[in-house]
Structures are given as C-alpha cells and as structure tokens.
C-alpha cells in the first residue's frame, strides 16, 4: 500500500437503518483498498440498503461511513467524487445515445471535455458498444443498457466502485466482458464492493465475501474462511452459503454478532 493513502477503501461502523422494521442493524465492515469485496445474502438481508447508504442515496439512522478516509455523511460531495454506483436497473436516459450519456455523466463529475471524450470512446470500445454509440438508448437490450450504465460508472475513473447486482439480465458473453473490465479496474488499484445472488461470480471474483442476514454481517472472510465457518460437509459455495445464512438467521434472532473469521 502506498504510504499516505488510507488502508481501507470503505469503513462502515455500526450502520443502522430502519424502515418499518430494521433493514440494516448495527452493521460494521471494512473493504481494503484494491480489494474486490462481495456481499451475499438472502432477499431482504439489507445488502442494497447498505450500498445505497454508502453512496449517499439513503441517510442512515445511526453509524458512520468512510470512503478512503472521507466521511461520507459529513462531506458527501467529496466522497461521491471518488465513488461510482451501479444498480441492477440501468440508470440511463432513453433519448440520449451512449456517447452523449457518457459525456453527460463525465460533466456531472466535472471531468474535462478532452479527457471525457477519450475515456468515453475507450469505454465504448472495451465494452463492445461501438455499434450502438450513436443510437438512442431506448432501443437497446437490457444487457447493452447495463453495459452503458457500467461505462457511465467508470467514465470518471472512480476509486471505489459500488455495484448492486450488476450481472442481472446479462448474457454469458456480456457477463464475462463486465467481469474482465472489473478485474482490470481492481488490478489498477480500484476497489469494488458488489452484491450478487450469483454465487459463482462471488466465488471466482471476490477477494473476500461478506454474508449478510437480517441486516447484520453473519459471516465474513475468504471462501476458505467461509467454508471453515460453515463447518464440514459443505462442498460447494451454495451449501456453504445456505449453512451460513441458516446459522446467521439463528444468531440474528438471538441478537448475536457475526461468526468470527
């Protein structure tokens, strides 16, 4: 790690958010700089709520969030400058072309015009969007729209990329392309935190995996760590995941914290 740079890309402490019932309940986790971190969990575990609070889209009831040493709650604009958010529903404008969309996003992040143009064209090339660059997004398939949204998330070269189910609706070739782009970004020093229900993606890509259940972290660590925590007899990640969720549910009900890594 370069001296002077924070060790952690993301530090979440005692994060709490309730709607009608607790969605995130005293969550604490850390993502190291240059790490690919995946959050797993059943539906309603609080993964998306956690990420939305991290990106400043939701206000937590309690707790703190720090991105590369910047307090997200105290200085959201500075924090957003180094972050990118991509949800499973592509946030794009139907009446803009992908190229125009990328220029617009670059403008929002204050990227100068020449740099924005060069990056937009590079991303369009990398993500195989050249054929659609001048077409309005309204006619693009779900997968292509998702790639446009991903390009938008990368055009300002964020240091922390936050992804919520980015592989939903992608075909195998597109999914591989997106995985490769994300791997390249991590290799370049970028940090990624991602939720997914596709366990194979977590297994292949994540440096560490966090398993959420009932708004809390039920388990955390590398895949081997998780297998150990789940106990013997769980050969696949699916078995491991289901065992951890079951244990996590019991612990959540009894009010106890995550299983130690």
């Amino acid at each position, binding site marked *: 790690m370069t001296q002077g740079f924070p060790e952690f890309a993301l530090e979440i402490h005692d994060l709490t958010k309730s709607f009608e019932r607790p969605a995130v309940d005293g969550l604490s986790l850390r993502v190291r700089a240059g790490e690919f971190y995946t959050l797993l969990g059943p539906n309603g575990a609080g993964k998306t709520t956690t990420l939305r609070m991290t*990106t*400043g*889209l939701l206000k937590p009831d309690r707790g703190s969030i720090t991105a590369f040493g910047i307090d997200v709650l105290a200085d959201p*604009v*500075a*924090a*957003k*400058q180094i*972050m*990118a*958010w991509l*949800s499973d529903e592509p*946030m*794009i*404008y*139907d*009446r*803009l*072309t992908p*190229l*125009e969309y990328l*220029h*617009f*996003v*670059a*403008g*929002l*992040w*204050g990227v100068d*015009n020449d740099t*924005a*143009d060069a990056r937009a064209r590079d991303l369009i090339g990398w993500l195989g969007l050249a054929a*659609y660059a*001048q*077409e*309005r*997004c*309204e*006619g*693009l398939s779900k997968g292509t729209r998702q790639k446009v949204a991903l390009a*938008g998330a990368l055009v300002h070269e964020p240091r922390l990329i936050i992804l919520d189910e980015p592989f939903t609706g992608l075909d195998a070739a597109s999914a591989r392309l997106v995985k490769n782009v994300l791997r390249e970004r991590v290799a370049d020093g970028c940090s990624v935190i991602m939720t997914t229900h596709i366990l194979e993606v977590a297994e292949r890509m994540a440096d560490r995996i966090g398993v959420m259940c009932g708004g809390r972290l039920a388990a955390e660590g590398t895949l081997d760590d998780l297998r150990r925590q789940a106990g013997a007899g769980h050969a696949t990640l699916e078995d491991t995941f289901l065992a951890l969720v079951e244990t996590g549910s019991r612990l959540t009900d009894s009010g106890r914290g995550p299983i130690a890594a």
Partner: protein
Amino acid sequence: MIKAGTVAWFAQHETRLAWRDWAWLLSGGRRRRGYAVMLGLAVFVVFMHGFAYLTLAPSADFTAPPDKRLLVSIGGTLLLYWSLMLSQAMEAVTRAFYARGDLDLILSSSASAGRLFAVRIGAMAVGIAGMSLGLAAPAINVLAWLGGAHWLAAYGVVLALAMASVAISVMLTIGLFRSIGPKRTRLVAQIVAAVIGASFVIGVQLVAILSVGTLSRAILFQSQPIIDRAPDVDSLWWLPVDAAIGGGLALIIVLAAGAFVLAGAIRFCAPRFAELALAAGGVAQSSARRHRRAISFHPKSPGQALRRKEWVLLWRDPWLMSQSLMQLLYLLPPFFLLARMFYGEGSGAALLVPVLIMAAGQLAGGLAWLAISGEDAPDLIASAPVTAARVWRAKAEAVAGGIAIVFGPILFVLAIVDPRLSILTLCGITIAGSAATLIQFWFRAQVKRSLFRRRHVSSRIATFAEALSSIIWAGAGAVAVVSLSFAIIPGAVALLVLGLAWMFSPKRQ
C-alpha cells in the same frame, strides 16, 4: 356464476378494476381521506351549481319558447362541449391501444380478444359519458330549475354525444393505425386529440377577434351577424338543440343515432383492436433512432450538463413535447389579437397580460414536473458529486430557459406595442412560473416521465395549488394593468396559496 371469457365476464372484470381504481383515487388507500374527498366533492358540486346559477339566471328567459338567439347559444355550447368530449375520447382510445397492463396476459390466452375490446370500448363510452354528465350536471340542473323539467332532456343529448365521441374516436384511431402505422399514430392521435379539444375554442376566439375584436365566446354567440347567418329555427340542424330543450322525438332520434354509431364501432372495430394492440406493443421493441452527430455534452459545469440534458430529452421526445406545448395552442388567439394591434387594427392589449401569465404558470408547472419528478435516472444524479441545491437550481434554470424561449418573442412584440404592459407581463410570467416550479419542487415524487399525462393524479393538492396559483397571479396581472396598488391584494392571496401548498407538502412533513 358467469361463464369465463364471455362479454359479461369481461364486463365484470373491468367493472371491478375500474371501481378499485376509483376507490384508490378517492381515498389513496385511507378510509378517512375518502370521506374528506367526498365532502370536498359535495362542496364543489354546491359551488358549481351556484356558479351556474349566477351565470345563467341573468342571461335569458328559459321558460319562453326558444328563439334563434337561444338556439345559437345552446348549439354553440353543445358543439364546444362535444369537441372537448371528442378530445377526451381520442385520448382514452389511444391509451387503450398503447397501455400494456394486462393486455399481454389476455392476448396470450385463449379468451376472445374481440369480446374484451368490445367491453373496453363500452367502458370508454361509460367513462366519457360519466365525466361529461358530471361536468354538465350543474348547468342542466340550473336550467331545469329556471326553465322547467324539460331541460333535463339535455342529459340524454350529452349521453348521445359521448357515445358518438367514442365511436368516432375508435374509427379515427384505427384509420390512423392503418394509414400511418402504430409508431406515428401514438403521437399524431395525441396531437389530434388536443387540436380537436382546442380547435373549436380557438376558432371561436379567432372569429370573435376578427368580427368583434374580443376574446369572448359568449359575445360572439350573441352577436347579430352570427344570429343572422344561422339556420332558421325549424331547420334540422337544430335537432340536437331541440332534443336538449326537451323535444321528445328529437331526443329519441339523437339517442338512437349515438347508440347506433357506438354499436357499429363495437361490432366492426373491436375484432381489429387485438391485432392493432399487438402492433402497438411492438413499438417499444422497434429499432432505435440513430444520431449521426451527437449533441455536444461538453459542459463547463455539472449545472450546465443538467440543463442541457433536460432540454435534449424534451426536444427528442415529440410526445412529451407536444403534451407540454399543447396548452400553448390557446395562446394563438391572444397572439393574433396582439398582431392586429401591432398593425393598429385594434386595442385592448391588457387582455393579453392575464392570458400570458396563466399560460406561463401552466407551462412552467409541466416542465418543472418533467425536470424534477420525471427524472429517469434519480440515483445517477443523487450519486453525483453535486450538492442537491445545485441540482435543483440547474433544473429550475432549465425550466426558466424553456419559458424564456416560448414567451420571449411574444414579450418582444408586446414591448413594441406597449412597453409598460410588457414589463408587467414579464414580472407576472416570472412570478407565476417560479410559483409553479416551487410547487412541483415541494410535491416532487419519483415517477417515470412517460406518465406525464397522469401527473395530476399523483398529488391533487399540487395540481389544485398550481392551477389556483397561476389563475390568481394572472388575476393579479390583470388588476396591475389598472392599478399596481390594487394588485397587492390578489398577489397576497396568491402568496397565501403558496404558503398553504408549502404547509401541506409531503417534503416539509
């Protein structure tokens, strides 16, 4: 138990859905709110009856045998009303074609789509008739009170006109589908609907300006040249008017004609609806438009990026553009009046001040809704490193830019005719536009911008406050033409409306 797939079964299904929609619209899911809305409606009905009485009582003797003057007035009003019904029916039919809802489910089943659409055309007729009868009821009831029970026959005429409106709209829309295809029909049908709705009002105003130099329709219907040129009292042209006044045979003929046309439309058009609805469903999947030259999004600031984005999105969406600008059709008569004055052929530019202020308030409200509530990528904007205040400011500037483009040229011409009026109008447009934008900001809710036409449903308080604010600011503008000091009173009332809107706004609560 009704047999599944029959007309009666579909009718039961549609009635249940319509009833639940209505119940939700009234109550918003809360019983107490439902009671409050019912009470509000009752007060509104009483107010409308009072308004109708004050308008009609001094205008004519409704117990006397109808003369040509009365026939012209009633005939003109019926024609005006029918054009509005036709406009509403066109919109309802277009919605039935393009809204997917449960169509995919039903069209993929083995049930007869022809029966479903027969029921839906019938339901449209019931809907249009219900709305039209509701709106006409105060005037008809007051006429019956003043002139006798025979005036209640006007209900039958309104019903017949509603049936004919739906039938004509169905045939017209199918004709458009066949001639210009499903993609263009959506836009063209919406424009046709608005033009039909506005054309008679605008046409009558234009004739009034040319003949008597005023915007008033009532004066035109009472003017001697029009009465002289109208058909004789015993002409068949007056059949619907005769029916409305209580002519028994005329009423039977008018009702039978309406029912016959509607039955014909159902019989011949319902079976074609299914294939056309399928074609309409394919519009969304059609290939995208290419742009050889991208719009330059090379902004100097995030605010500029946001402003340009708003304008480009509006410019590239002809449907939204037409919906936003359609109300500006009503500016044509005042602009024509202004043009006449510019060439020294008339006077009364003061009439323009409230019309322009009102139109600006309404347009600003629509544009502000699109920019604020109709944001299609809210997460993207919220996750950008831009403060919320800066985002809102940029969106307000985008609205102001749109208003400036539309009203700038008119103000320029007005400044040449009468600089003082031009300054007054500019102030009024700025204030009314800002007030409408503020109301949309306070009542913002995340909705897809394609639901622009249903924006009034999302908050009745916002809709009411926006309309009331524009009307009162327009009134203040009209008073200011005579005396600036007196304009303080309506201005204060308008500010009170704004204050109340803010108090009731969900964002504040």
